[in-house]
């Protein structure tokens, strides 16, 4: 997995590419924790390059959501394929996140 960041206004858009599973989740977790440590609390995750996500990845996102709540930050997600969306549905994660159809809406939500 590779991860790239883009800044849009006061929001950081994090784009992981590849699979988010037990073999890659620690990398994403470290990346997101680094942003939190740096005080970056408005985070958008771009899923357009993500093939699938397993529970190891869900754990990382749950930690992101809890940090976001603690730091009074904003988190939004967009660009999920059907497989990623299905895992979010089955795990009951849809209720925990703002998930938008487009990047622009995700950035706007994280800015609000």
């Amino acid at each position, binding site marked *: 997995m590779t991860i790239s960041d883009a800044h849009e206004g006061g929001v950081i858009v994090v784009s992981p590419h590849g*699979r988010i*599973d*037990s*073999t890659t989740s620690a990398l994403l977790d470290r990346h997101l924790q680094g942003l939190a440590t740096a005080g970056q609390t408005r985070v958008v995750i771009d899923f357009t390059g993500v*093939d*699938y*996500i*397993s*529970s*190891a990845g*869900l*754990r990382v996102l*749950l930690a992101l*959501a*809890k940090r976001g*709540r603690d730091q009074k930050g904003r988190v939004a997600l967009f660009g999920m*394929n*059907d*497989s990623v969306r*299905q*895992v979010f549905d*089955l*795990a*009951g994660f849809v*209720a*925990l996140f703002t998930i938008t159809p487009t990047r622009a809406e995700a950035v706007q939500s994280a800015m609000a």
Partner: protein
Amino acid sequence: MPEVNLHCTTLAPSADGVRRTLDEFERFGRAHGLSDDLRRRVLVALDEILTNIGQHGGSADNLILVDCTVADDRLTVTVEDSGSPFNPLDVPPADTASPLEQRKAGGLGIELVRRLFESVQYEHADSRNRLTITARVSRDVNHP
């Protein structure tokens, strides 16, 4: 379509073994034209099952065998290991409904396996745990 098989062996607990098995299934799925949906569901399940064995049956000599067969439009994936008897299907249902404050991620992996497949079966025989998942095969429409 003729019957096709994939056999992998790996050792638990081994992150490299999990990665290698996922890579092998990825190639198998693409080579045989499995749909993205089915390929990804199996990759999620293999990641959950193999990491679970690593956590519960994690001695270095616990040889894990992964076998995938496509025949008669059914995909069967069997994961066997020689660790202590452990039925992952006995794990209580995961919390998928609490609000963020109370939400825990424990048990989500096996919950996903249970919900992603029509059939998930466990047996313990010959001192080995055997978990079998089956699915109807859907194929990539672009596969020759």
